[in-house]
């Protein structure tokens, strides 16, 4: 008989109660882990973003255009290394259910700003020479079976071409892969020159500028100088780092981090109450046994340790099963629905967080029983005064 044998046997003394509590812990950590995976997918792009890259758009909104010559003016500012531009196409393939992230970009230098897109040199050179060429992600190529040289018709929900149609014709010129697993491999890029030449209206305008600043330049002062340059024009600008820009875009839909935090706080608080109540009940039921063990020479500390390990076992088992189940679900989603949530995954740091939370919860849940154990008066518990 070992100390941990006693902990183990005591834990499973009331099997039904143990498993019901364990399931509640499991559900809580399943929810927490799943939401963390989704949050990781949404924020992966943010943390992957180069902090030396800036996005400049119209001050009012991204739907307002900037003049294409804005690029040259920004390029002339101190601290700026490279400037390119892009416009949102709003594309889909065959029908609107197959939405695609299609962007018209300055073909001269856009991919110099975004080295995370790995494009074979030959293909990139070919794309620059092909006016109707598109660069597509590997995942997209795999999904639709598109190969280099394939003619691909894409439609825009925003931009009509000169022939009065929303259908545009493209040729697959290059296929990119990403440096990072979490990156989106479903994007489509094509030449802004083709876009400008083909569209029926809003020529010589762009949706936003992408600017890379020099390594030694001060980010804030470059941001200020760009916005000051256009402050008194018809198109005042708003410049942010790429990280902030993507985060703001994501937050337009939902502030996932905040939702997760609120859910975690609510779930964790409820969980603590449930487990705490279980442990208090456990100790109350074992009052006589605890007193007997004290009489035998067990210190309050060793009895409290025993309760701590029981809490840890209960919480650890629930959290382990919950997190691993969520991990499997997220893995499944990652494989099957990568288009929808690229980068969905659970990181090692998440499992570390779960481990820390379990330990904190175990300490908290042992605290109240610890007071009860400390207060046990052996003589009063085991025998009346006679």
């Amino acid at each position, binding site marked *: 008989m070992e100390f941990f044998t006693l902990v183990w046997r005591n834990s499973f003394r009331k099997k039904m109660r143990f498993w019901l509590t364990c399931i509640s812990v499991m559900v809580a950590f399943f929810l927490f882990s799943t939401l963390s995976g989704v949050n990781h997918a949404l924020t992966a792009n943010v943390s992957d973003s180069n902090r030396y890259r800036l996005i400049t758009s119209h001050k009012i909104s991204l739907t307002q255009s900037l003049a294409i010559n804005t690029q040259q003016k920004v390029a002339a500012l101190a601290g700026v290394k490279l400037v390119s531009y892009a416009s949102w196409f709003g594309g889909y393939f065959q029908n609107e259910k197959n939405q695609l992230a299609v962007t018209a970009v300055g073909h001269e230098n856009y991919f110099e700003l975004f080295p995370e897109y790995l494009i074979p040199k030959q293909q990139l050179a070919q794309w620059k020479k092909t006016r109707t060429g598109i660069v597509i992600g590997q995942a997209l190529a795999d999904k639709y079976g598109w190969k280099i040289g394939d003619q691909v018709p894409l439609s825009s929900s925003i931009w009509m071409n000169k022939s009065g149609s929303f259908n545009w014709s493209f040729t697959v010129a290059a296929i990119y892969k990403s440096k990072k697993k979490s990156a989106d491999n479903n994007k489509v890029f094509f030449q802004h020159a083709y876009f400008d030449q083909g569209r029926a209206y809003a020529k010589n305008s762009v949706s936003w500028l992408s600017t890379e600043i020099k390594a030694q330049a001060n980010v804030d002062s470059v941001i200020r100088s760009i916005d000051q340059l256009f402050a008194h024009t018809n198109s005042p600008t708003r410049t942010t780092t790429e990280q902030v820009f993507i985060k703001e875009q994501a937050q337009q839909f939902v502030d996932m981090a905040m939702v997760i935090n609120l859910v975690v706080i609510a779930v964790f608080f409820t969980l603590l109450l449930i487990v705490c109540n279980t442990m208090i009940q456990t100790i109350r039921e074992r009052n006589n046994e605890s007193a*007997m063990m004290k009489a035998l020479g067990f210190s309050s500390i060793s009895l409290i340790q025993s309760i701590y390990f029981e809490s840890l076992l209960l919480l650890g088992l629930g959290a382990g099963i919950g997190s691993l189940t969520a991990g499997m679900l997220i893995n499944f989603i990652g494989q099957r629905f990568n288009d929808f949530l690229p980068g969905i995954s659970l990181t090692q740091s998440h499992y570390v967080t779960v481990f820390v939370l379990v330990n904190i919860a175990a300490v908290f849940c042992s605290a109240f029983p610890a007071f009860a154990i400390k207060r046990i008066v052996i003589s009063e518990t085991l025998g009346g005064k006679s």
Partner: protein
Amino acid sequence: MKNNNDITLKDINKSYQKGDNTVVVHDHFNLTINSGEFVALMGPSGLGKSTLLHLMGGLDQPTSGEVAIGTQRIDNLKEAQLTKWRAENIGFVFQSHHLLPVLSAQGNVELPLVLTPLNKKERQEHASYALKLVGMSDRSKHYPKELSGGQEQRVAIARAIVSDPNILLCDEPTGNLDRKTANEILELLAQLNRDFGKTIVMVTHDNKAAEYATRVINLESYMVEQNKCVAGAS
């Protein structure tokens, strides 16, 4: 010369609060139990028999006065020191056995040995020997719910003696048992006193049980005697 395991209660005062009232249980109480005695403490309920037992075992502290086992005073020990002292010196047997239902008879008897430096094998050997002494070897793998009341009490006695304490404190150990089983338990206690020299203090209401003791103290008359002595002295 004073024996190392004599139990000495000197000028003990013990009172406790019950609502607004202070209940005095013992007032300048003195008692010495010699090492190797089997003492039966008898008397009506409410006289403080169990309280005396708890004081001797370090489960309770006197309001004032001295409690000593041999030369070791225990009334002024801190909780942690008392806990350690109890583990090494005292075995308890209560009316309710308080065996852990999740452990077998063997596991329950091994429980106090978890606190000792003995390894697993040694603990098992000690527990097996204790169970053999109380005649429960063949029930070592049984759980408390599979044992009768008498068998449970035998296991509780094995648990009390497994760490080889010098003193056994028994609070109505046969209170829940039928006559035949009670006699078996009492014979076992007498044997532990006779053959192994254990000092046993047993609180009981049962005159038959008291017959197994080497000294019977009727607390009511003992206290009257003491008061006379105190009055005579003053």
